[in-house]
C-alpha cells in the first residue's frame, strides 16, 4: 500500500513569490488595499446596520518617513479575525460573507469584491514593513499587527483609535513613486473611480473617485457618451448602453448581468492588427483594459467599458479567465451589439452609413473573412472612386453592371481616362483587402462583372476595322510597331499605349541585364524571365492603340498626307501615348521621347 505524505511548505519562499511575482504592476498593490478597505466598509454597513454610518477611505503619505497609509472606517478586526483571516493566506472573510449573503441578499453580496484572500499580500509588493492598526465595531481593544514579509508577525495592543483599520506601508524604494504628487489620485481614478465608497487623498475634502459609473447616471446614454469622449478624446459616432441579457443555452436560458456601454470612435487605424477592445470592471473595481476577446472578432471598430460580476478574475485580478462564464458574457455582448447595429441601420440609416464609412478599411478587411458581417455591410461600405466615395450599389448604378478597379492608388491617369471615357468611374483598390472584397462581391451578385483596369484596360477598347485608318496602320506595320486599331472613348484621344502585365518588370530586367547590374549567378534566371516576355523587355514593349473614333485620325487617314508628314505625325502620337501612359519609362526614355516629339514637330511645322 502506498503511504500518503504531506507536502512541506516553505512559507518565506511562498510569501515572496505571492507578494512579488503574483502581480504585474506595483499600482495593483494599492488597488488591492483599496478594495479591502471598501469591503470592510460594506461589511460594517451590512453587519452593524447603523443608520448614520458614512463609509470613507483616506490615503495619506509621509515623504520623510517614506510611508503610505490607507485608512478606512469599516468594520475593523477582532484579535480572532486577525488570526483567522489577516494572517491566513488564501482565506478571506469577504468571500465567506458573500457566500453567506448570496441567496438572501444578493445585492449586498454583489457589493463585496474580495475573493481569494490574497489581496493583502500585495502590501509586500510595495512595502518592506506593514503595520495594521485596527479596532473592530464589535468592541475590544485596538490592536497593532506588524510584519516584515517573513513568516513571523507581531500582534500587540495599541492606543485607542476610531473603529476601522489603517494599513501603514513602509515603502520600498521601488514603490517610492507613490509619494509623488498626483500619483495616488491617478491610481484611485484608474482602479477605483466607480467604487461607491469615497476615497480621499491627503485629506482633500473632495473624494478623488467619482463613485458613480456613467451607466448609473440619470441620463446614462449622455453620461456614457461624455465618458467615451473623455476616454477617446473625440465624440463617439455611436453609443450602446448594455443591459442584462438573457441567452439561450439550448436546454435552458441564462441571464447574464451586464452593465456598461459599447461605443464606436470616429475613426480607426486600418490594420489587420487593429482590435476592438474593452475595459473590464468587476463589481465596479477596474480589472484590466484592452481585453480583446470579449467582442466578436468582426467588431474591430468597437470599444467599450463593461462591469460584469460573473467574469472570473485571475488571482492577481489583472486579467480574466476565459471560462464558460466568459463565453456567456461574450455571447451576451455579441447579441446586444448585433441587435444594436441592426436597429441603428434600420432607424438611423445616416448614422449607420457614417459609422461604416468612418471605419471602411477595417470593415472591408474583416468582411472578407466573415460571411455574416460581409452580408450586413456589403452594400453600405464606401469605396474611393474617380467620382468620390461611392457604395457598390451606387457605383454599379453608374456602370453596366461591371466593377472597374485599379490596384495602384487611383490608377494611372490613363486608366482613369479610359474608364471615364466610357462614363465609368474606377474604384481605387490599392488597399490590399479591397480587391478581395470586390471579388467576393462579384462572386455573390449574379451578373456583376469585375475588371482590373491596370491589366485589362484593353477590355474598354472595341475592336475596329483597320480600313478606316489604313495608311496609318500600314506605316505602323512597316515600322514593326505593335499596334491595334480600336474604337474607344474619349474620342478626342488619338492613341494610347497599353502594356501587358509584367512588361515594366521585364523592361527593367532587360535594362539591368544590359547594364550588368544583376548579381552574376542570377543573370540566367533574369534572362529567362526576359525571354518569357518577348518584346516587353525593349523600351517600346507596349501596344499602340490607334483610336478609330478619333475624328482627327480619320481625317489624317483620308487626307493622304505626304509620307514625311504621316511619319512625323505618327511618331509624335506614339511618343505622346508613351509619355501619357507614364509606364515602363526611365527619365532617359522620357527625355528621348520628348526629343523625338519635338524633332518631328519641327519637321512638320517648319516645312
Amino acid at each position: 500500500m502506498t503511504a500518503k505524505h504531506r507536502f512541506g511548505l516553505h512559507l518565506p519562499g511562498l510569501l515572496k513569490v505571492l507578494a512579488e511575482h503574483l502581480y504585474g504592476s506595483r499600482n495593483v498593490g494599492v488597488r488591492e488595499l483599496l478594495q479591502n478597505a471598501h469591503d470592510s466598509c460594506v461589511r460594517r454597513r451590512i453587519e452593524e446596520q447603523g443608520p448614520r454610518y458614512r463609509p470613507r477611505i483616506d490615503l495619506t503619505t509621509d515623504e520623510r518617513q517614506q510611508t503610505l497609509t490607507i485608512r478606512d472606517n469599516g468594520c475593523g478586526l477582532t484579535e480572532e479575525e486577525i488570526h483567522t483571516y489577516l494572517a491566513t493566506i488564501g482565506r478571506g472573510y469577504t468571500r465567506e460573507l458573500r457566500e453567506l449573503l448570496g441567496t438572501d441578499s444578493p445585492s449586498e453580496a454583489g457589493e463585496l469584491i474580495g475573493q481569494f484572500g490574497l489581496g493583502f499580500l500585495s502590501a509586500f509588493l510595495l512595502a518592506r514593513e506593514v503595520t495594521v492598526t485596527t479596532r473592530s465595531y464589535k468592541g475590544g481593544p485596538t490592536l497593532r499587527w506588524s510584519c516584515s514579509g517573513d513568516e513571523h508577525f507581531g500582534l500587540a495592543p495599541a492606543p485607542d483609535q476610531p473603529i476601522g483599520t489603517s494599513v501603514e506601508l513602509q515603502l520600498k524604494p521601488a514603490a517610492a513613486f507613490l509619494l509623488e504628487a498626483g500619483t495616488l489620485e491617478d491610481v484611485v481614478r484608474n482602479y477605483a473611480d466607480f467604487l461607491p465608497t469615497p476615497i480621499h487623498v491627503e485629506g482633500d475634502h473632495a473624494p478623488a473617485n467619482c463613485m458613480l459609473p456613467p451607466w448609473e447616471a440619470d441620463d446614462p446614454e449622455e453620461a456614457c457618451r461624455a465618458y467615451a469622449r473623455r476616454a477617446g478624446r473625440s465624440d463617439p459616432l455611436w453609443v450602446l448602453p448594455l443591459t442584462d441579457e438573457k441567452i439561450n443555452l439550448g436546454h435552458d436560458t441564462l441571464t447574464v448581468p451586464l452593465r456598461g456601454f459599447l461605443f464606436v470612435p470616429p475613426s480607426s487605424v486600418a490594420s489587420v492588427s487593429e482590435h476592438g477592445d474593452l475595459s473590464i470592471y468587476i463589481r465596479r473595481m477596474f480589472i484590466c483594459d484592452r481585453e480583446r476577446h470579449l467582442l466578436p472578432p468582426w467588431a474591430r471598430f468597437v470599444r467599450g467599458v463593461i462591469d460584469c460580476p460573473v467574469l472570473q478574475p485571475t488571482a492577481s485580478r489583472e486579467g480574466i479567465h476565459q471560462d464558460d462564464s466568459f463565453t456567456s458574457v461574450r455571447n451576451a455582448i455579441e447579441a446586444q451589439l448585433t441587435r444594436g447595429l441592426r436597429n441603428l441601420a434600420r432607424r438611423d440609416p445616416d448614422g449607420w452609413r457614417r459609422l461604416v464609412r468612418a471605419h471602411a478599411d477595417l470593415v472591408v478587411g474583416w468582411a472578407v473573412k466573415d460571411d455574416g458581417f460581409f452580408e450586413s455591410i456589403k452594400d453600405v461600405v464606401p469605396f474611393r472612386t474617380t467620382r468620390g466615395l461611392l457604395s457598390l450599389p451606387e457605383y454599379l448604378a453608374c456602370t453596366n453592371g461591371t466593377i472597374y478597379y485599379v490596384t495602384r492608388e487611383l490608377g494611372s491617369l490613363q486608366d482613369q481616362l479610359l474608364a471615364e471615357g466610357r462614363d465609368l468611374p474606377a474604384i481605387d483598390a490599392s488597399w490590399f483587402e479591397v480587391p478581395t472584397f470586390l471579388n467576393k462581391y462579384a462572386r455573390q451578385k449574379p451578373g456583376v462583372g469585375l475588371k482590373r483596369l491596370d491589366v485589362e484596360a484593353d477590355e474598354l477598347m472595341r475592336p475596329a476595322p483597320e480600313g478606316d485608318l489604313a495608311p496609318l496602320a500600314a506605316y505602323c506595320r512597316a515600322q514593326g510597331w505593335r499596334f491595334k486599331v480600336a474604337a474607344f472613348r474619349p474620342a478626342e484621344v488619338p492613341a494610347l499605349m497599353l502594356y501587358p502585365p509584367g512588361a515594366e518588370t521585364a523592361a527593367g530586367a532587360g535594362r539591368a541585364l544590359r547594364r550588368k547590374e544583376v548579381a552574376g549567378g542570377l543573370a540566367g534566371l533574369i534572362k529567362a524571365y526576359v525571354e518569357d516576355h518577348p518584346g516587353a523587355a525593349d523600351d517600346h514593349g507596349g501596344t499602340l492603340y490607334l483610336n478609330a473614333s478619333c475624328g482627327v485620325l480619320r481625317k489624317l487617314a483620308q487626307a493622304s498626307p505626304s509620307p514625311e508628314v504621316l511619319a512625323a505625325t505618327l511618331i509624335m502620337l506614339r511618343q505622346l501615348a508613351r509619355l501619357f501612359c507614364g509606364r515602363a519609362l526611365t527619365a532617359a526614355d522620357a527625355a528621348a521621347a520628348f526629343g523625338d516629339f519635338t524633332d518631328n514637330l519641327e519637321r512638320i511645322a517648319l516645312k
Partner: protein
Amino acid sequence: MNLNDWLASQARDIADSGDADRLRMLGCYSRAFKLRETDPDGAFAAFTEGRQLAQRLDEPWWALYYEKYRIDALIHFKRDYRQTIDMAVQLVLDLNKPGNAGYPGRVPCWDSLLAAYLGVDAEGYAEPIQEAIDTLEKEVPDCPDSERYLLTARKVVFALEQERYQDAYKHCMAELKLAADDDKQSRGAHYAAFVFCELCQVGATIENWPQVARWAKAGEELSQAVGHQCERAEASAWQAVAAWHAGNRTEAARILQGAIATTRSLGMPPNRGYYEALITYHLAARDLESALRVREDELSTTQNRGRLLYECRLHVERCRLLSALRRLRPADLDAARAAAGKLRKPQRYLDQLAALRVS
C-alpha cells in the same frame, strides 16, 4: 552587418522610439508567422500590411523585407506561384536601386527568386537554376546560418524535382549536420523538421521502410516540438506508410486518419510529400480508387496555381491511374497535354502520355 543584426538593431530602435506606426510595422512579421498554417491569406495580408506601412513610413529596406516575405507566403503558405516570379524578379531588380545597395537581406531575396522558379518549372529552367545555386554556393558561408539552410533546402528540392534521389539524400544530410552544429537549437529544429519529411520521400523511392519509419518518427516529434502542424501531418502520413509495410495495418490506418484530420484542420494546402505518402499508402494496399481520389484532390489544390511542372506531373499520374482502372478518356489526356504544353520542355511528358491507352 547581416540581416539578423540589422533586424535586432531596428527592433531596439523602434521599441525605444515608441513610434506606434513603426511598432505596428515591426509586429506584422510575427502576426503573419502565427497565422501561416491556419490562415495563409491572413499571413499574406499581414506581410502586405507590413510592406504598405514601410512604404508609407519611407522605410525602403523594410519594404524589401516584407516584399520578400509576401513572395514566401505565396510560395510556402498559400502554395500559389502565379505571381511569384514577377514579384521576385522585381524584388531582385529593386535591390539595385541606389538606396538599397547596403541592404543586408540580399541573399534571402535571391533565394525567393530561386524558390519561385523551382516551384514553377524546375526542369524547364534547370540550367539557370543550377547556375544560381552554384553562385550562391560560393556567396553563402558554409556555417549554420539561415542563408545556408535556405540554400541547402533549395538544393534538396531541386534534386527531388529532377528525381536525383541520391543527391537529395546527400543535401538532406548536409542540412541535418547544419542543424546539429547550430548554436541556435530552435533554428536547427525548425529546418530539420522539413528535412526529415523530405528524407521520407527519398526513402520511399528505394522502399527502405524501416528507414522511412525512423525519419518519419523524428520528423513528427520535431514538427510537434517546433509547432509545424503541416509537417507533422506529413511525417505522420509517412509513419502510416511505414507501419503498413511493417504489417501493422490497424495502427497504420489509425495514424493515417490522424494525419488527415490534422491536415483538414489547417488552412494551408498540404505539402506534396503529404500527398505522396497518402498515395504510397493506398498503392501499397492496392487500392487504386483511393489513390485516384487523393491524386484528384491534390490536383484540385494545385491547378491554376502557377506550379506548371507539378501540375503537369499530377495530370500524367492521374492519367496513369485512370488507365490502370480502364477509365482513361480522351478528355483526360487532352487536359494533361494542355498542362504539358505550358512547360518549357514538355516532350518527356507528351511521350509518357502518348504511351497510355484510352479505354
